[in-house]
């Protein structure tokens, strides 16, 4: 510290830490480039304050080093709110978060670009702090917020992917769902939970692949008569090497999200990527790569990409605007051939010049090759081999010693709608460094591991935030185990009298719905309205309509029913005032109903469900729509067991997924349950209720009518909330076998 001014500053910060003394002078010089006098004073004052916090040298050190970059990015006005937050952290049990907060501040500021935005970021952090800092008896804050430090550590990464609004939603979700679980909360904010990644994905900026998948599929079909599996890859978590689109025999790989860029919307960037890949599939042929150097291969790829783009534009001229907007425009002379390898830059310029007639480059050899390129494509699409020989010629003609240099000019040379061209190369010899990851024996063993169907994931409605939790519940579907069909026959025998009564009802119901056909010249009855009108016409002297009769036509019932049976633990209880368990009564009722509907001929499916936390919702197939009521189905009913809990929403959604595939005028989901939705991993009973309500609404929107028959006498409170007016409570459970078929008949009459 030789300069007197620096000495004066050093006195001002009044600091005894040796680590700080080592770097102080450098920091001051850097700060002086960004700040004027009053700002400088505030900077030193803040540093002094941080030095006196009693948290060692680190906060001060970090601040001194980072703050000049913040000022560079957004100016010095942001200091007071930042120091306010530091004070708040210091006063709360969260003072350990001060250092991570200051450490990432510069990166955050660079991303946010304005003091106003930074203020909102600080508000989000403060909100998280106040709402997750633990307390005992609600008086004294004593436990630090578990999520705060990970949030500060992750924030540059998060802000790279999310807008501030998205960050707010993501933080909100973490607070709401993990405020009572410190370890989980920490994992959530450190992005270690699957959940937190899923919500992150949902909140990302730009066009999500999941939202436009169908449109892209239609795009391929409509414009290119091509169709392939579109497979998204994640761009969020691979920081070292940004993946590039490509295609192979398993499908076309595209990023999971595209932000709008250079005035081009995300969906159009997807379209450009797909169009380019389609072009390769149409016009490119694989070349043998062994004899060419990496430079030569790169040149061949550039030329071939240009050929594909040119042909695409020839097909759809409107693509030129799109491709040119996405294609970088390398500046002539931006790369110094003395110190840097310029081949990439030259090729990118060439590529631009080929696509853009108004490129304005002056280089003579570039122009010559552009002309040769267009001459080749003049009468027809040319071929990959033509491009290869042109490219080799180009590399030979324009070659410079410096192309070998390790420092490569990359600016404006990455054309991100183009795929990685892996399909363009064939290798005759395996390269030396190739590794074989696939052990044939290993894959076999893996396949045999799968025993049932893979799970289907359904979202769950969170009524407090009014959002869906993505992919929350995993539903495993399996065939219900079989028992002895004779048991069910015995049950039916027991209800022989009831069956007889039902049969009478069924026969009454059979000649169903009559449809009137009006305006018939000949029919079974006179249609009075029309006849009177005709008579009036006739009396008035004008021509009467002779079609005054009507006739009838019987119309078949077109109903599909799915009976969803709750198989939770509570079914094992004895029914009030009887010797039978609710399960046995349910079995009887299901058997009678299935028998009745089978006689009626309506397609009926039966399934049972129960759950063991959201990770294991079991959906058991008992009878399919096209299965008859025969011994195999009876055997499954006979083997019905009860256990675990009732996660209703997921089961309803899964059942609805089958019903919605049926083509019937009326689709009915009949739910037989003995209690309200509940599961052991949910503390708030209102949550699963609200989710079930939402599931019923979703089904309603798909044209599926849900009806609930509840065996819980105290169900009125919640069943109305979930099912609206489509429910009935059966107080006397022993009557279930009799009531269920009658209920069905009255519902569908």
């Amino acid at each position, binding site marked *: 510290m030789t300069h007197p001014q620096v000495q004066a500053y050093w006195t001002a910060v009044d600091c005894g830490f040796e680590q700080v003394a080592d770097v102080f002078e450098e920091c001051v010089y850097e700060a002086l480039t960004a700040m004027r006098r009053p700002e400088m004073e505030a900077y030193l004052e803040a540093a002094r304050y941080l030095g006196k916090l009693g948290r060692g040298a680190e906060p001060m050190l970090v601040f001194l080093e980072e703050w000049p970059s913040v000022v560079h990015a957004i100016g010095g006005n942001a200091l007071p709110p930042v120091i306010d937050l530091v004070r708040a952290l210091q006063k709360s049990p969260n003072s350990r978060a001060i250092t991570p907060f200051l450490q990432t501040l510069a990166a955050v500021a660079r991303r946010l670009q304005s003091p106003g935005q930074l203020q909102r970021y600080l508000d989000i952090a403060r909100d998280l702090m106040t709402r997750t800092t633990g307390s005992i008896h609600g008086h004294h804050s004593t436990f630090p917020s578990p999520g705060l430090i990970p949030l500060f550590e992750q924030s540059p990464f998060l802000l790279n992917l999310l807008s501030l609004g998205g960050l707010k939603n993501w933080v909100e979700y973490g607070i709401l769902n993990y405020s009572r679980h410190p370890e989980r909360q920490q994992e959530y904010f450190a992005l270690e939970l699957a959940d937190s990644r899923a919500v992150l994905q949902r909140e990302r900026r730009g066009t999500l692949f999941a939202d436009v998948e169908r449109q892209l599929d*239609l795009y391929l079909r409509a414009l290119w008569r091509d169709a392939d599996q579109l497979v998204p890859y994640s761009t969020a978590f691979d920081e070292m090497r940004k993946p590039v689109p490509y295609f192979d025999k398993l499908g076309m790989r595209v990023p999971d999200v595209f932000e709008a860029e250079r005035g081009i919307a995300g969906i159009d960037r997807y379209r450009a990527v797909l169009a380019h890949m389609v072009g390769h599939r149409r016009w490119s042929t694989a070349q043998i790569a062994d004899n060419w150097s990496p430079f030569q291969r790169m040149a061949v790829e550039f030329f071939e990409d240009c050929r594909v783009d040119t042909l695409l534009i020839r097909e759809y*001229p409107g693509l030129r605007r799109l491709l040119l907007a996405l294609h970088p425009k390398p500046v002539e002379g931006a790369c110094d051939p003395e110190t840097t390898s310029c081949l990439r830059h030259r090729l990118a310029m060439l590529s631009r010049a080929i696509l853009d007639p108004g490129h304005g480059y002056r280089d003579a050899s570039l122009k010559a090759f552009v002309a040769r390129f267009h001459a080749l494509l003049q009468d027809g699409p040319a071929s990959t081999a033509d491009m290869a020989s042109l490219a080799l010629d180009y590399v030979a003609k324009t070659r410079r010693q410096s192309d070998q240099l390790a420092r490569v000019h990359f600016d404006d040379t990455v054309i991100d709608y183009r795929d990685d061209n892996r399909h363009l190369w064939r290798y005759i010899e395996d390269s030396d460094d190739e590794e074989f990851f696939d052990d044939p024996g290993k894959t076999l063993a893996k396949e045999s591991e799968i025993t049932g169907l893979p799970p289907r994931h359904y979202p769950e409605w969170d009524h407090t935030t009014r959002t869906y939790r993505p992919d929350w519940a995993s539903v495993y579907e399996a065939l219900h185990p079989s028992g002895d069909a004779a048991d069910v026959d015995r049950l039916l025998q027991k209800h022989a009298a009831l069956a007889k009564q039902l049969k009478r009802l069924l026969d009454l119901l059979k000649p169903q719905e009559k449809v009137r056909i009006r305006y018939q010249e000949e029919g079974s009855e006179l249609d009075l309205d029309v006849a009177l009108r005709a008579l009036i016409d006739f009396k008035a002297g004008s021509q009467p309509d002779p079609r005054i009769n009507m006739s009838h036509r019987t119309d078949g019932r077109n109903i599909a029913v799915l009976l969803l049976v709750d198989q939770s633990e509570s079914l094992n209880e004895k029914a009030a005032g009887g010797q039978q368990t609710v399960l046995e009564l349910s079995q009887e009722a299901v058997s009678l109903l299935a028998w009745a509907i089978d006689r009626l001929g309506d397609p009926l499916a039966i399934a049972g469900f129960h759950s063991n936390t959201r990770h294991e919702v079991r959906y058991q197939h008992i009878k399919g729509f096209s299965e008859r009521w025969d011994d195999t189905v009876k055997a499954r009913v006979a083997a019905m067991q009860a256990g675990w809990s009732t996660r209703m929403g997921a089961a309803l959604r899964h059942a609805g997924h089958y019903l919605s595939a049926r083509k019937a005028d009326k689709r009915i989901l009949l739910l037989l349950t003995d209690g309200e939705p509940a599961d052991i991993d949910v503390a708030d009973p209102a949550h699963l209720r609200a989710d079930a309500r939402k599931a019923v609404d979703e089904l309603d929107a798909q044209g599926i009518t849900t009806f609930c028959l509840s065996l819980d006498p105290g169900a009125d409170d919640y069943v109305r909330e979930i099912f609206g007016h489509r429910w009935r409570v059966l107080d006397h459970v022993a009557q279930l076998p009799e009531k269920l078929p009658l209920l069905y008949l009255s519902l569908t009459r």
Partner: protein
Amino acid sequence: MSIKDQYLVKQEPFYQAQGREIALYEAAYAAKLPVMVKGPTGCGKSRFVEYMAWKLQKPLVTVACNEDMTASDLVGRYLLEANGTRWLDGPLTVAARIGAICYLDEIVEARQDTTVVIHPLTDHRRVLPLDKKGELIEAHPDFQLVISYNPGYQSLMKDLKQSTKQRFTAFDFDYPAAELETAIIARETGLAEGMAAKLVKVGQAGRNLKGHGLDEGISTRLLVYAATLIKRGVDAGDACRMALVRPITDDADIRATLDHAIDATFA
């Protein structure tokens, strides 16, 4: 003017043959075989029949079928009058009497009990019994029956009976190939060939989506509409959106895709 003249096609309609259908039709007409014309909507079925009627210089009686149509709407009926009744021939009877080509458009729309009245006219008997009037009409030697039918869009419930189908010889129409369709649009509307070719390109993009959310592709008729609008000075993109995309779909994804196809085609 006799009743026959009133049904003659006066002006030559423009029809561009797609294959040998004109010669084949003439052969069928010479033998008086009933003809069925199949194909998607707006591909030129009705225009073809009209053109053939003009070429053969025969009257053409066209009936657009609908589901309320009864047998007597085809054959004829007694009308009540102040002092008695009067018989009025239906279009089919008129055609059989005067020796016209009777064209039943979209025959499947009519109820099945209606379609059976054409049976005796379509086999070797060539007679039409008028049971209410107690008359048996021998068809005029020039009489021929033509029906059109679109196998695509109707519901599964509506199909012709085998016994009806097997009384006809059939032409299978489809949208013409690209160059031909370009020529048709250019000729029909006077639009420049280059522009017409672009319209056809958009049309084909739509046709590729048939079965993937579209029940029917963009028809030649709609392309002609778009060309007409462009010819009147409407911006090409707007004309396409208005005439080609908006009529055929309410699906937002398909609309966005076709809109993009329009933008990509008309640079």
